[in-house]
């Protein structure tokens, strides 16, 4: 967690100035006003994180041959079914969760979020709408910058906020409809899971297409070890997001998966899942069933 009020001095100056600024487009701005959300200021938070502590950056762990997965993470060993050892033959393979990548990511995102929320709190805002997030890897390996920004808003005619402002990736009509549907936004949620695949002989042959002898006699075959890594990474991301929901719903989720190949038989599956934590605060009043229209244009 970020220490209390570590905002740079320039931020304080910018926030103290009179006029409003916002990152909203004109339709989103209009929609905010129609909801009685008064835009106050563009607020933002940064955090640069490094996770190079594992012996030469991200590559280090696996290239040592025997990485030590952090305790508690997912870990599965794939033994060679052939029962012989040569210099070329990967008798031993493993899938393991890169918990250090995950925790660095979680810290980076939550620090940036906390700082953005702090700026909003300083303005007396009820919430932050239209949050955008970017994670930029900097030149040095294993370093990433997290940047979150959004528009702080005050709810017209509501008493001063008691707790921290809520945050949401949504803005404009989408947000208006979320309110209308009986939800209230709580927080922008994001999590990353990362699974490393150190291929055993069967997997390596299947991936390289050498097929034949070791990968199932030259026929097509599913690459179990990698498929499993994909499944587990998605499951981990979902379970972790669920833990952050505390019984609320995740709305408008976005799942993106990156599979990197660090070297021959050395893969990483990274899953980013983000969305809006929303709570049902009013019973759902169903809309009439839609009618089909044809536009004459």
């Amino acid at each position, binding site marked *: 967690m970020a220490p209390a009020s570590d905002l740079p001095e320039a931020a304080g100056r910018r926030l103290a100035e009179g006029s409003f600024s916002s990152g909203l487009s004109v339709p989103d701005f209009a929609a905010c006003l*129609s*909801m*009685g959300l008064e835009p106050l200021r563009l607020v933002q938070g940064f955090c640069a994180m490094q996770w190079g502590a594992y012996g030469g950056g991200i590559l280090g762990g696996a290239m040592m041959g025997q990485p030590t997965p952090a305790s508690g993470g997912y870990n599965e060993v794939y033994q060679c079914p052939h029962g012989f050892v040569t210099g070329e033959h990967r008798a031993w393979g493993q899938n393991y969760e890169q918990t250090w990548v995950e925790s660095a990511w979680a810290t980076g995102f939550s620090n940036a979020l906390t700082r953005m929320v702090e700026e909003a709190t300083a303005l007396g805002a*009820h919430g932050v709408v239209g949050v955008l997030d970017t994670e930029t890897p900097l030149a040095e390996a294993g370093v990433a910058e997290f940047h979150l920004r959004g528009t702080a808003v005050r*709810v*017209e*005619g*509501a008493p001063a906020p008691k707790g921290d402002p*809520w945050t949401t990736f*949504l803005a404009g009509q*989408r947000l208006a*409809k979320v*309110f*209308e*549907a009986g939800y*209230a936004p709580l927080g922008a949620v994001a999590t990353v899971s990362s699974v490393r695949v150190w291929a055993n002989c069967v997997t390596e042959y299947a*991936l*390289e*297409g*050498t*097929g034949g002898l070791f*990968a199932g006699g030259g*026929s*097509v*075959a*599913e*690459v179990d070890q*990698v*498929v499993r890594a*994909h*499944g587990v990474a*998605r499951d981990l991301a979902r379970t972790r997001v*669920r833990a952050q*929901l*505390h*019984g*609320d*719903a*995740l*709305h*408008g*989720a976005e*799942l993106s*998966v990156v599979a990197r190949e660090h070297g021959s038989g050395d893969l990483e599956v990274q899953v980013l*899942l983000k*969305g809006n934590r929303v*709570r049902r*605060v*009013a019973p759902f009043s*169903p*809309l*009439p*069933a*839609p*009618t*089909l*229209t*044809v*536009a004459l*244009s």
Partner: protein
Amino acid sequence: MSAPSPEPVDLKAVVRRAVAALDGTPSDTYPTTSDLTIDEELALHSIGWEPVELVSGVSIVSIPLGWWNWGQGEITAASEAHRHAFANAVTRLHREAARAGGHGVVGVRVEAVVRPTHVEVALVGSAVRPVGAGARPEAEVFLSDLSGRDFTLLSVAGWETVGLAVGSSFVFAPRRSVGTVLGQQTQNVELTNFTEAIYAARETAMARMQDAALALGATGVVGVSIDEGPMSFASHAVGFVAIGTVVRPGPSGHQRVAPMTVVPLDDAVVAFEAHALE
């Protein structure tokens, strides 16, 4: 899809109440996750459905070496790997959806990549169910790559979505002998053997899609798209993949939807024009 709203809502009051309610007790409902937009969710709710969980299914199937070297006819290992990868990914999606208590998955996003040594298929979508309904056996879960909006509209018209139908065919382009090439240099001529090879490959992909649809008990397939072209890593090999959404009429049969003509005001209006001929 815009229905005339019965009465205007005091949105500002709704927002004020919602924000005030956040200070109350936390909700005790089962947490749902979904990648639906609010429009899709509202559309689904209008026919009594709700999202339960974001689900996915992945499969990677290897293709042994040597299949892409120039040959003749179909590259059967590639077609087979493609079929396997889709079938396995669909099975996993079914399983996840059923485990989450979904009756079906809507808005399935299909990502399929064919590489020289393997085919990767990833499916992601939101599991949905009639509001408050209990779980359904895995075999009865339906899949649909239609958006929540299209799903709603079909269901209003009395149709059910059943699943995805996929058919693929990978073939080698035929070769012309040097003599033929020279002989045809200056002529307008149809290359009939080329036409037949490519035509047949496309038809094969579509026929396989139809077989898959029939196996699912389809009455029809809508939204068929055919993705085709030379492989990026082997230009003499051409791939055809046909994907469509399998539908069948529900118990009440087709219902007329009686569309309404509208003139959108947020776009330049182009008038309907008939060119008279002499």
